[in-house]
């Protein structure tokens, strides 16, 4: 990777695509927390602006964008409920995108991972509100600020779709977007991944969701797929 230059920038301030001399493309977001790299990704300066490379093998949303996610619902100044924040790889990029006017509510039950998340991401960025709770007990996290525009769910649990639906019903505004990463192997190891994804999509449709796009994340993550849906309820 040598000498990256700006290839395309998206109007709503979401993310940019950089290109190197061999015409290979890289996703990047403008760094909100200047000078700090969260998970060892490269920081690049172009025209006094600082960008962080968004690695598709580390973040499933980046993988989906590279696999042609038609419409990225996460824009500047939108508020996002993020279920399964983990160490904050994707959260940091989403926080870059939504900017200082937006809000990210990051839910994470595991204390061990949250320790790093709090230290490296949440305490350094002003638009992140960490919530250390199980997403199953969604009625318990009273620390909440109105309804959100987007719910992003990335939890490896057998009932991950139900958890996401419950959270949406409580916190997603009608007409808002749900992005859910289906980890088929943690729902069912035995059945075919395609079938599992179909079943989960059907479950969403039965709960007042309108499926917009289903993306198979194949080269970046094995047996994972990402569903983009709209909440009509």
């Amino acid at each position: 990777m040598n000498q990256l230059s700006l290839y395309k920038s998206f109007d709503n301030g979401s993310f940019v695509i950089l290109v190197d001399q061999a015409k290979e493309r890289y996703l990047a977001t403008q760094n909100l927390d200047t000078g700090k790299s969260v998970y060892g990704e490269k920081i690049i300066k172009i025209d006094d602006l600082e960008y962080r490379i968004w690695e598709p093998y580390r973040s499933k949303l980046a993988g989906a964008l590279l696999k042609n996610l038609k419409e990225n619902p996460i824009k500047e100044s939108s508020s996002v409920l993020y279920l399964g924040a983990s160490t904050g790889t994707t959260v940091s990029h989403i926080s870059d995108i939504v900017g200082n006017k937006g809000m990210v509510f990051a839910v994470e039950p595991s204390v061990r991972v949250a320790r790093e998340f709090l230290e490296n991401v949440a305490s350094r960025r002003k638009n992140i509100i960490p919530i250390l709770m199980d997403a199953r007990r969604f009625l318990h996290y009273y620390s909440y600020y109105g309804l959100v525009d987007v719910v992003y769910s990335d939890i490896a649990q057998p009932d991950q779709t139900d958890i996401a639906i419950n959270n949406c019903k409580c916190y997603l505004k009608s007409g808002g977007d749900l992005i859910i990463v289906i980890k088929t192997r943690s729902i069912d190891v035995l059945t075919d991944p395609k079938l599992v994804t179909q079943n989960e999509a059907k479950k969403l449709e039965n709960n007042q969701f309108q499926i917009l796009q289903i993306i198979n994340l194949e080269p970046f993550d094995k047996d994972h797929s990402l569903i983009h849906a709209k909440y009509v309820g």
Partner: protein
Amino acid sequence: MPSRNNKVIILYLLSYLEFRFMTDNVYKFLILELGIAIVDEKNMIQSFKRFHDPVQSHLKIKNRDYEEISESLEVFKVKPELLQTNYPEIIDYLRNNTFHAEKISAVEERQSQIDKISFYTEMYDSDQQDHSGRGRDISDNLREFSLKWSSLKVKEASEQLDLHISQSINALDEIDKILNTVGTRMREWYGLHFPELDNLLQNIVTYANIVSKVGKREEITVEFLQSLEIPENKIEIIIMTAKRSKGGKLTEENLLILQSLANEVISLAQIRKTLEDHIDISMEEISPNLKELLTATVGARLIAKAGSLKRLASLSSSTIQILGAEKALFRTLKTGANPPKHGLLFQHPVIHSAPKWQRGKLARAISSKAAIAARVDLYSRNPESSNTLASKLNDRITEIQEKYKEPSEIQQRQQQQNFKRADRDSYTRNKGKQYGRDRDKDRDGDRDFKFKKNKFKKRFHKSNKK
């Protein structure tokens, strides 16, 4: 009579409905992150109280200290018929104060989420702050609260003793690994100089002591060996063999490095000892029942595998039985092979000393009592229960050992079959080692193998094309 009864019921129902819908004496009692809000049926704010230190107030409420709540309950001059709350833990408290209280419904929860911003703005208005940066002020306060609250949770969790137990048992396992590799390397190296010692001394620490404190084999003395508490007859043999050893000479440089290796082994063994004692003591403290049933190390390994004692207590006994045999379990699910009988529990002295056909039954008996023990340790810490648990388990173990002294006929047959299969496998494996035409002839006869061969060929071609 029945018609009269019905009338009474209908009247009662009507009055209940009236109470439920006609009165506006129903309030929502919402505990929010920055304060307490009391809202009436039409979502109009009746009262709100801002916490001065939100983290402390939430801690108080969590620890069932309801001082702040009772203050804001004094707002009601007439006691409300029904209170709805978003915080399930305080329902009992509200009921004790002669309020009807219930959990807020999901629809109303959502509605209060929508209204929350207005709650906060009004809360801040009442404080008569300047209106300019209010929105930012609220979200800054929210963020500050949630950061502090979650750091507090992290801190709380890091202080739990069971996490320390699982760390120390993992450290013990890792040190065992290192001790093994470094120890064998030391034996191998010193074996160049004094090869016979390897067979004479089993204990790695005494071996390392000899290497580090004496060094060359000619300098080994009887007094030194006596100080290491080696039996008399062995000392004689060691001195004898040292005199006519087949080993080569050792240069000073090599000896120095070897001695530092040996010192490493000794210090590792010391750490191992302290870790073992520490696990023993802290298991006694945190889960005495589990320790009584499973021995300290096996109990600690179970806790480490499950993540914490709390999580172990929430597992079913069947899960505990195969904890640590996940690979075999998934093989069963995928291919229908025999399910694993035991995972980590195999290290339990009763199970691994038992004959093969008893192990499954023993593992089941032990895991069922272990599940109970973990729950007792977590929730009640009743020392008496360990006696009853252990005696019941012992009864069951002796029962199994007597009832299934011999394997059943089916098991015997299976064992014979397994033996035959193993025999056949080793036969065909040896066939593979033969050279020449005969080998290929034999393999072609095996249909299964042929199929595999073809499959391999296809795959090979595919990858070549790419």
